[in-house]
């Protein structure tokens, strides 16, 4: 009731059963859709229908030279517009009956032989995207370098239910992740680096350090990312990078392999045998789930994390930012009820916003009130929706309000520029 006065949610972490087994790899898929036009940036695709694709072959690139690769061998069947719940509308290449195989490449190059600029350049050449925030790694490294960071932290927290990919990756390939973290720290000029993992009785255990990097055991409330950011600011400034992106950076530096696979967890109330898997980017999530034992009940597929992700169709392709696919029984879902005014959403908001009032202002169309309530500060963690006893999807309304306020601000600024 009124006791959730400290921001965030306590004890949300529960280890996924997927951590019990090793990380496996997906071996077959019916088709693949590779998004080639991310964001609003202009991409160039030298391919047409019938063109052959193969691993290591660049499928498209931006004006700034950021590339897109695929893990598949096959032929382009179509170039189409794809409505992806995470990427929104994007252009994708469809490959019918793709063949692929996952293997860890042999280490051909010494990771310590790169200069800082070369490390950042390879993060760009390999097309690596950080799964924690969707930012391109090379841009992120450049930004961190420019900010004069003191510390770089590897985020392996996996703090939501049904998600354990980063933890599994650190457990199985800890050395590789720590080496990549040291290289990234060197690239950005940070004097310290650390790996952040969850602490607690139920959390998987890690040694005091992996390679040369110390392991920080922390027990934050959910959402851990902004709280870790606050902690990092307290240490003199810096940033955090996901374990998945660091693993991709390690492969790029040691074997010049592009970022074509992601490690993700398949779990949920409908999944009987949860797994952590290496999955090529572009495979439909339905094909991934088919590799796990699921119940016969109707399913609901959720991508982007159970707390702040969205539901999607089985045809939705895997993207570089995915760390989990949650498959839940659809029968456990019920409609929202009337708001009881319990104020739990206000108590847990990590940004100290008034989520329910933002929702009310949005639904009443009161834009002047909206601008007072600062919905643009929302980080979309989903705490408000999670704690709501009436199961109202507050987060969605707050994000809508955020978009409205941001677009209104952009319009106003655009207008004033024109006037000037």
């Amino acid at each position, binding site marked *: 009731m009124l006791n959730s006065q400290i921001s965030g949610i306590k004890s949300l972490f529960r280890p996924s059963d997927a951590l019990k087994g090793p990380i496996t790899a997906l071996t077959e898929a019916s088709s693949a859709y590779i998004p080639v036009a991310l964001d609003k940036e202009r991409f160039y695709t030298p391919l047409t229908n019938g063109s052959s694709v193969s691993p290591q072959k660049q499928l498209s690139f931006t004006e700034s030279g950021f590339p897109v690769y695929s893990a598949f061998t096959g032929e382009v069947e179509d170039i189409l517009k794809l409505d992806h719940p995470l990427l929104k509308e994007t252009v994708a290449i469809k490959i019918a009956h793709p063949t692929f195989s996952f293997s860890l490449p042999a280490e051909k190059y010494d990771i310590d032989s790169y200069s800082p600029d070369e490390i950042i350049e390879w993060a760009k050449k390999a097309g690596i995207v950080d799964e924690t925030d969707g930012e391109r790694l090379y841009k992120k490294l450049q930004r961190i370098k420019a900010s004069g960071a003191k510390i770089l932290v590897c985020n392996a927290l996996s703090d939501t239910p049904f998600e354990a990919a980063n933890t599994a990756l650190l457990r199985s390939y800890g050395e590789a992740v720590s080496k990549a973290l040291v290289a990234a720290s060197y690239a950005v000029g940070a004097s310290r680096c650390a790996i952040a993992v969850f602490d607690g009785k139920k959390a998987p255990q890690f040694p005091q350090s992996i390679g040369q990097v110390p392991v920080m055991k922390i027990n934050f409330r959910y959402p851990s990312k902004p709280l870790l950011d606050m902690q990092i600011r307290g240490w003199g400034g810096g940033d955090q990078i996901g374990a998945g992106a660091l693993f991709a950076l390690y492969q790029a530096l040691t074997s010049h392999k592009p970022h074509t696979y992601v490690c993700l967890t398949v779990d949920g109330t409908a999944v009987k045998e949860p797994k952590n898997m290496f999955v090529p980017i572009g495979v439909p999530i339905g094909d991934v789930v088919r590799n796990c034992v699921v119940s016969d009940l109707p399913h609901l597929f959720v991508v982007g994390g159970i707390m702040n992700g969205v539901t999607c169709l089985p045809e939705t392709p895997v993207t570089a930012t995915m760390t989990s696919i949650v498959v839940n029984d659809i029968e456990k879902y019920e409609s929202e*009820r009337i708001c009881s005014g319990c104020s739990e959403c206000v108590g847990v908001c990590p940004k100290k916003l008034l989520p329910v009032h933002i929702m009310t202002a949005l639904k009443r169309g009161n834009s002047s009130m909206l601008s007072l309530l600062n919905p643009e500060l929302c980080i979309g963690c989903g705490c408000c929706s999670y704690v709501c006893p009436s199961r109202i999807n507050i987060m969605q309304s707050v994000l809508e309000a955020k978009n409205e306020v941001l677009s209104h601000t952009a319009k106003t600024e655009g207008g004033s520029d024109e006037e000037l």
Partner: protein
Amino acid sequence: MKSFNTAPFIRLDSDKFPKYYTDLLIALAGPLFMAVFLYGVRAALIMAFSLVTAVFLNALEFSVFGNKPIIDADDILTAVIIPLLCPATINLLIPCAGVAVAVAVRIFISNFIRPKMMFLSTACIGWIFLVAVFGSRMFEYTQPQALTSFSLSVTSVGETVPSVTALIKSGNGESFDLIHLLLGELAGPMGASSPIVLLACALFLIIRHSAPYQTFVGYILSAFVCSVAFGGVSGCTLLTAGLFSISGGSLLFCAIFIACQRHFYPMTKTGRWISGILLGFFTVLLRNILPIEQAAPIAILVITFLSYYIDVVAYLLNNAVRYVKVLHRNRIRQRIEGIRKKSRKNDDEAQEIL
């Protein structure tokens, strides 16, 4: 397929009867018991009639709109609160009419108003409706007599006595007796029983985190201060007048069971303090202005209607305070850095000299 966020559906505990309602119903057992103790079995009968009305209307709503009844037990609470705001002499069916109006308003808001949100105290609306329709019959109070009336008959209307609030309004404090006050043996609504029992209920709800202490404490303190400041009661000390002012009538009962209902108080801590203080002020003000004896339900209805705006004001205030704090912290940091730079300079100069 429309994408939607799944966070509201991870928890599977929402079907349980919410702890908040259980706590409130347990707490209401206190004044309910006192009402039966002081006014006889008839008090329980009035309550039973009201409850049947609420359950019947809930079932009707379920058959028409398909809404899950009872889970959010607002109507049950309303059906207990409205009779407790009435005198013991009231006709059995009158509180039922109030409950029917209150439930009808709740049904209208939850089915036809968007966003689905309660922003009015339906119990207050039901009570105001009764006052508007039945007028003086809502204020025909009788002298409570513990354990004396176990029959279903009620003291006749002719034996009505002025309530504490009426005495305060008339400025007559000569008959105020603290022992009678503590035992709840003062004329007033059925729920205006012993302040000890009511305070115990408040404590229970606050300890269980089912009521915010900010609204309650703010309300009581502000009502006390305002009633002392307004003064005008002769024949007793200012302290006694203040105590009677907050304990007599329905003020204390309303402060616990209506003002602290989760639908109506603001969501921010600062907002709760503001609303509590405003409630106390408005209750005493309306009590002195309006011709009716009980002003608390009207004050609560007015202030709870403003809860949303109070929250916005509190949010802006908190932001301003945070901004000033950050500004202050940065200034201190700059000063410390300046001092450090100076001392470093001095050290360097000293070393150069050496």
